[in-house]
């Protein structure tokens, strides 16, 4: 059975103090309750409630990492056995590992209890209501536009309770709440189809999700856009001026820059290796990764404290165009002779902490979107971040749901979604206008790196040069 939180904290503390022959040990209990409701075309596609809890134990022995986890039984004896397995795993590496972990950077270990801010606790909302809003939004998306005959709607929530204790003094308890809601509409005619999404993923509660927009507003937006996209032509493939919306800026920041500055990627030879202090972007660009919800509320990647017990504060990766910092856990910080940036994150109890982003964004400046359009002779305004990928050399590619053609300072026509690609640093060097309004907009996404992580990203509108690739 699940232990009460004080019991768990005590139990983990005794476990840590009982461990022998290890240079570092960390124990993390996590209990997660997840609810999913999904309607497709008027039918319940999926409903489930999943409860997962357990304890993950990580040890550093002779410069080798070992990790073990257990779920069925979190009694002290079971934890003790699991600790033994983690130590055995670490010892298994000792024969073959070449470069031993040199140690962990000194970090201030957090002690305390954190409850991430929510308006309207998700556990106070009955599952019946979660089913109802999802059902209504899906139906509304189909009714709203004639061309839309297929729609779906997803409600997803993750409620976490974590207890983190380590041998360097961390004693953290975190209560987190991350819901998301998303409507997809597909418009069709004569063998052609167009898809549009409208959704929000946040750290927060029920009223944060539905306070500003009702389920019907989400549905109407997705439905209208799908119908409009169906009538749109494909964009021509070319390298040109592109105005990215906040979601696209978030995706660029996360996928194309953020991954290259994760210290583990840097050590493997990413394109930014050895370039701290160099100009890598236009001076208009300040790019940040933060575990707090800076500049706007409810960012989905908010964590407050990372899974090594380090405060997850604002890290300026690029400041006024100059590369300032990589993203670190305590191990990589030691290697680089710097401090941890609080980026060690684990998804579930049975995942080990890895260097992961949190909320990654470009800070706003002073340009108005209208002026950005007015000053564009030929180019595109692209909106609606879709999936994206990037390589260690900074080459990126990601999808945009909408692309508006701009000619002579005016928005002309809506084109179908297209890929935007280029080299991320070239794109950032080409930035010549940065908008004044900030928004987080990729909170419905997960980042994948062996394990998922809830992340967010955003920015203002940003103008740059990149390749838009349409169908030819």
């Amino acid at each position, binding site marked *: 059975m699940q232990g009460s939180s004080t019991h768990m904290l005590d139990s983990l503390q005794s476990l840590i103090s009982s461990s022998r022959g290890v240079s570092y040990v960390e124990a993390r209990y996590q209990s997660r309750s997840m609810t999913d409701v999904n309607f497709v075309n008027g039918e319940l596609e999926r409903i489930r409630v999943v409860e997962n809890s357990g304890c993950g134990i990580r040890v550093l022995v002779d410069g080798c990492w070992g990790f073990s*986890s257990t779920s069925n039984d979190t009694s002290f004896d079971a934890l003790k056995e699991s600790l033994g397995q983690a130590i055995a795993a670490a010892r298994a590496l000792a024969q073959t590992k070449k470069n031993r972990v040199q140690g962990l950077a000194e970090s201030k270990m957090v002690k305390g209890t954190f409850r991430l801010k929510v308006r309207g606790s998700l556990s106070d909302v009955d599952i019946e209501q979660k089913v109802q809003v999802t059902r209504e939004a899906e139906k509304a998306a189909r009714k709203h536009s004639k061309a839309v005959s297929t729609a779906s709607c997803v409600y997803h929530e993750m409620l976490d309770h974590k207890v983190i204790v380590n041998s360097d003094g961390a004693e953290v308890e975190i209560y987190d709440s991350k819901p998301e809601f998303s409507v997809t509409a597909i418009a069709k005619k004569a063998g052609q189809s167009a898809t549009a999404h409208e959704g929000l993923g946040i750290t927060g509660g029920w009223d944060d999700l539905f306070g500003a927009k009702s389920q019907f507003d989400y549905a109407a937006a997705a439905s209208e856009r799908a119908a409009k996209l169906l009538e749109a032509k494909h964009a021509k493939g070319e390298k040109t001026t592109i105005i990215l919306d906040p979601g696209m800026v978030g995706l660029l920041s996360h996928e194309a820059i953020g991954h290259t500055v994760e210290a583990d990627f840097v050590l493997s030879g990413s394109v930014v290796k050895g370039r701290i202090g160099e100009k890598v972007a236009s001076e208009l660009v300040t790019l940040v990764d933060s575990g707090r919800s800076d500049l706007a509320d409810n960012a989905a990647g908010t964590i407050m404290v990372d899974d090594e017990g380090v405060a997850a504060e604002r890290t300026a990766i690029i400041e006024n165009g100059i590369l300032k910092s990589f993203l670190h856990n305590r191990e990589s910080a030691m290697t680089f002779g710097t401090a941890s940036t609080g980026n060690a994150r684990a998804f579930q109890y049975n995942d080990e902490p890895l260097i992961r982003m949190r909320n990654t964004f470009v800070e706003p400046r002073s340009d108005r979107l209208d002026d950005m359009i007015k000053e564009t002779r030929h180019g595109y305004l692209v909106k609606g971040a879709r999936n994206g990928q990037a390589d260690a050399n900074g080459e990126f590619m990601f999808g945009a749901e909408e692309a508006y053609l701009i000619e002579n300072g005016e928005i002309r026509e809506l084109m179908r979604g297209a*890929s935007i690609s280029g080299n991320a640093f070239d794109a950032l060097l080409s930035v010549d206008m940065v908008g004044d309004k900030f928004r987080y907009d990729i909170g419905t996404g997960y980042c994948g790196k062996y394990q998922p992580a809830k992340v967010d990203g955003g920015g203002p509108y940003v103008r740059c040069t990149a390749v838009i690739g349409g*169908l030819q």
Partner: protein
Amino acid sequence: MLDVLRYAIKEAEAQGADDAEAYAAVSAESEVFIENNDLKQAKSQAISSIGIRVLLNGSLGFYSVNRLSKDDVKGAVSMAIKVARVSPKDRYNSLPSRSKVRLLKGIYDRKAESFEASDAAGLAAEMLQAAKSYDSRVSVDSGNLARAVATHALANSNGTELKERISTFSWSIMGMAIEDSNVSSFDFQSGGSHFVKDIDARRASVEFAETVVNSLGPQRITSFRGEMLLTPSAVNELVEEVISHSINSDTVQKKSSQFAGKLGKKVSSELLAVEDDATNTEGLGAASFDREGVPHRRNVVIEKGVLKKFLYNTYTARKDGVRSTGNAGGSTSSPPSVSATNFIIRPGRSSVDALVSEMENGIIISRFSGNVNPVNGDFSGVVKGGRLVKNGEIKHAVKEVMMAGNVFDALRHLTGVSREQKAIFDSILPYMRFDNVSFTAG
């Protein structure tokens, strides 16, 4: 384990469920991670979980918990019933009746039980060594080698009681080649087996090393329309997703499959043959029964370019008035979905070398990074590890080439399938060559 499942069914019936199913999995896993050209961490975990599905007046409830004590299971059953009470009624909800399952051989190796973290560490070190000794410019970003020994079991209120053991080994390696300031495209290779003796992690390492070294020194090319030769990994990224989406009865019924209404019709060039086969033990998706206890079998889906069959679970089969094809998928933490088991594109007659030598003007693609829309088949993205082929000869690596088109159109322009195949987890795929693809230089 079956005791717990029986208890769950009895409890669900006592609490008012019309039908109930309990699916549980217990596994012991160990894994060694590679990072930055060295071993990173060793991990071991014991996982157990149960998923309870109940039907109540035609409504579905589902709850999953990762503890198997009687109290936890009883709580999960009550929660599943609570969920069913707020779910809409659906007359197609039902559980499969009991059927005879013949247990598959060749998916469980008793030696896997004594395969220790130190064995995994030794093999992972060999993988690193193989990549590095292929070429010193190779840099391994990450990789892993994992072992899982699992038991999955299912019981339902129609009297089904099934249990089997499966052992799997899987490994992967990814990274790039670095020469001065020149960094190649990323590549990812993987492999898997059910038996200790079949672990061949070295092969994935060498293929990875070869691919990244070949993509060093890329040159810009001009935009053109020509042929593409996809490696099995690229087939996996670009083609498989679209086909497996389209042959899924669920997407067909939801009108999001381009194959809807096309049974018996030609959907591609004659060279394409696709099957779904969980009884093929080469794939890691092999198992004797599916997520709701229906026996697995070989399903021929596309033969000579003609669409023969869709994949069904019990729910979608009932909707179409047919029988389940044994394609209920998913883990203990979800109600059954419809999914392919081992997705297989059957090999062709040509060798890869012959496919290359016949190319006039095209690109060999190891990886595709971009968007593929499984509904309409549109894809657009960047060619990774691409190499230009002119008049049958491989010329050089290509830089930042965008590729856009449509998978369904491409299947009609399929001009060659290799006789070489590669197993990628639960897919078994050949090289495939297509004509009439548009490449845009960056």
